[in-house]
């Protein structure tokens, strides 16, 4: 019974992600427009954009290699694999034992690398610039990410997402230790999410259907980050697979609320401070690293005292 429920939960989760991505993209554009006092696009415009792009003729760059041809599909597959593994409304989905935090970080990074290779394949000046910027950011982002989640992994004793999310539900000692460190980790992971979702100039490499797929992957990446932040830091109201179907409406509701809250936060930050420029990124990552180390120290001290 529980196995069937967990498979069903996984399928519902995948369907939810597929349906939410274009809506999230459009919703954030609408929010940004609303903050700026302009009328935004309708919420379903994301879907229409995809249809519109698929109707357009595809322009292929002269002398492009199979890397560029395969890049949008591979990038979307890598991001989608991450999206399947990160829980949204319930814990204990059928793939939960494979939802390793380090592996998910690796998948997101691999998706970024595929796009960097496509940019380099164009042989154009902007492609080299975009690639070098993206790579030099990735080099700092990965260690910072690992240190930032180390505090949580330390308290849970594992790098599995479900284990980390579920220790915050029980009333053990480690839950208290983690709760104290959560605001600090939130700052670190929030900065990382902002840096990691900075967009690459997709429309210079791709057009038509491949461009639609690449943009979908970009938005899905943001959604994976939202789900990751939600599962790690705010797993309030998340359903448990053992509790049966009755918890699911509450779980779905809380997932919607979390995603809305995070979308409002990101849009608000972007409206107030603008997007992070390359010059602002490194100090921001320094702040994230300092917060990550602080969280690790807090958890270590908490565990030593307890």
């Amino acid at each position, binding site marked *: 019974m529980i196995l069937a429920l967990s498979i069903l939960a996984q399928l519902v989760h995948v369907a939810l992600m597929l349906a939410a991505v274009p809506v999230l993209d459009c919703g954030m554009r609408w929010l940004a427009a609303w903050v700026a006092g302009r009328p935004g696009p309708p919420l379903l415009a994301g879907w229409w954009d995809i249809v519109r792009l698929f109707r357009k003729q595809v322009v292929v760059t002269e002398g492009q290699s199979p890397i560029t041809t395969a890049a949008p599909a591979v990038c979307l597959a890598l991001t989608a694999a991450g999206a399947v*593994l990160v829980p949204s409304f319930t814990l204990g989905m059928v793939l939960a*034992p494979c*939802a390793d935090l380090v592996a998910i970080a690796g998948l997101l990074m691999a998706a970024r690398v595929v796009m*960097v290779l496509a940019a380099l394949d164009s042989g154009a000046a902007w492609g080299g610039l975009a690639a*070098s910027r993206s790579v030099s950011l990735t080099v700092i982002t990965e*260690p910072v990410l690992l240190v930032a989640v180390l505090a949580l992994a330390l308290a849970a*004793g594992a790098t599995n997402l479900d284990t980390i999310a579920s220790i915050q539900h029980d009333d053990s000692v480690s839950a208290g230790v983690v709760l104290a460190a959560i605001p600090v980790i939130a700052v670190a992971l929030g900065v990382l999410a902002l840096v990691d979702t900075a967009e690459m100039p997709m429309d*210079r490499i791709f057009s038509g259907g491949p461009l639609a797929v690449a943009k979908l992957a970009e938005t899905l990446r943001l959604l994976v980050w939202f789900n990751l932040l939600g599962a790690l830091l705010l797993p309030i109201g998340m359903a448990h697979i053992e509790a049966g179907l009755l918890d699911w409406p509450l779980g779905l509701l809380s997932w919607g609320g979390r995603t809305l809250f995070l979308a409002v936060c990101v849009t608000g930050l972007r409206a107030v401070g603008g997007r992070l420029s390359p010059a602002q990124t490194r100090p921001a990552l320094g702040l994230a*690293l300092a917060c990550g180390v602080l969280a*690790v120290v807090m958890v270590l001290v908490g565990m030593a005292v307890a």
Partner: protein
Amino acid sequence: MTDPVLALLVVIILVLFVLGAVSAALPATVRQATGFVAAGASGFGALLALLSLTLAATDATLELPIGPPSLAFTLACDPLSGFFLLLLFLTGTAAIVFATETEPASDPATLSGPVICIAGLALALLATDGILLGLGVAVASLALWATGEPNRARGMQLSIGLLAAGAMVIVSALGASTLGLASLDGSVLGLSTLGVSTLGGASGSGLVRLADRSSLPTHLAFALALVAAGALAGLAPLHRWLVLAPTVMPARAGTLLCGAMVPVAVYCLLRTVASGAGMGFAPWWGALLMALGAVSAVVGAWIAAREPTLATIPAALSCRQTGLAAIGIGLTLFALATDLPSMARLALGGMFLAVVGQALCVTVLMLVSGAVLRSAGSLRLDRLGGLIHRMPLTASCVMAALFGLVALPPGLGFAASWLLIQAALAGLRSTSAPTQILFVGLIAGIALSAALALAAAVRLIGVAFLGRPRMPRSSVAEDIPRPARPVPLVLAGLSLCVGLLPGIALAFLAGPAIHRLSGGRGEPIRASLALLPLEGEAGYVPLVILALLALGAAATIAVLRRLSVHQRDGPAWQDGFARAPAWLPFGDPLTQTDGRGFVPDLPSVRISRGGRIRLPRLAGRVQPGRVPAGSVPSGSMRGRLATAGHAVLALVVGLLMLVVWIEAL
């Protein structure tokens, strides 16, 4: 007891020695046949090693009828040497076949050096005492040194090889005298008491005397062996020679240096450490190895992301793998000293996977670098470009090999890094304050090294194989000759398979070795599809990730094929600039990146001619009393972020001091 497998291995080593010695004197027509015989012998050796790993329940020993009167040489094959023999013969066969197929048979030095090197290294792996081990390493170093032109880096390589050999001999002598273990009873070799004691010609777990465990000479012998094996393996402060060496030797010698000799050096390190663990050394030896390993993993990857040629980048990545292996060895030593055998298993798994990556993937990269030099005329990244169109098979092999070295799921490098991170996490949870800082740094170091290696891999592929050609020669390059194609394909395919089934590969190839090195207690290592951490049932399952990726990619490609409107070709968008003139057929070369801006220069301490030490200049350091051009305005977002970062950093330092103080009370 004489084992047929071991006897056959000895025969193979003899055959290789003889072939290597006579091949230079043979006429050119026979020489290619000699190459195939040598490759066959080496391939048979790999099969035998595999057989000894899967079948043999006990260790085989073989007493040689030569040696000093009361101290005859003994050869032995246990699971640890079997594992390394398999890798050695695999890379050796690949190097010989590739050299025979692609290099002109008229060159008398084509074969003899590599073949003698393989035989010497195999002898070192089978040795049970330091003299034979040192002899094998020295012969291999000399054989590699004899190929290629005279140069400072090559001289350094020779001296380091000889230093390592000499140190092994000295350590064996020291080990014999301090431990009082000169007897050779030829009993079953207990891996946990191998190393100094066995290098000194002794075996048998009951013989190690407790009183001698932490004596000064033992520590000195351990330190000396560590320095020698570390230098040969390219461990951190002594890594520079290994990066430079491939530039002054032909690709076949470079292949054997980075893909075969360096893993054997890791083996020497492991033997030495196994002895230390058997003698109950203090955990700080483990901490020292971990720190050295982390530094070399970061420095190796950083150098790889800056190096300009296709030959030095794999060598630097080999240094990184050595660093990862050293981290694994250090974690093992720490785990055994603090009695955590399951943590030792994780660490050893990570170490063995790192060594497999070093042997398979670095070998592919070095072989391919030789092919690129022959066909595209240069090894410099900024003279290649667009090779994927002319050399598709080479490009796919390079990508597969780099995928096995960087930490991206579901690859081999990711599995190794994942196991090391889990072991470090287990260590972090089991120790107290001052050591915990080391483990946090270790995890950050593994992640930084992975990210830098990724930058190096992206740069190598993106600059040399993608984009536009930079020189006319690379636009007419030809792929690897057809008969030699299976060699890199098989090696790259093996690395992909091990990456997808790390649990099964570890259980079959290294299971008995891991079991014995981690103390020999508990259940034997079981084969499983998933890699599991210390606690809980949830882990890393590469096959599930692969299935998700295949499903996602297949669905997306099907949708794209079904719905896309027909295609049209057009020039790449160049920001509105006009097309390059006719005398620049590949476009303006200056508008294409050569990958220099990916990673900044490695900060290093330099000693100037006047003897003054120049410390590294850190980016963004502001001189007092002077506002540089790129300074931070105090009211800006960046300034505020920087101030907040400094404040948090100060808080962290304060808290760390508090923790140390609380622990000291």
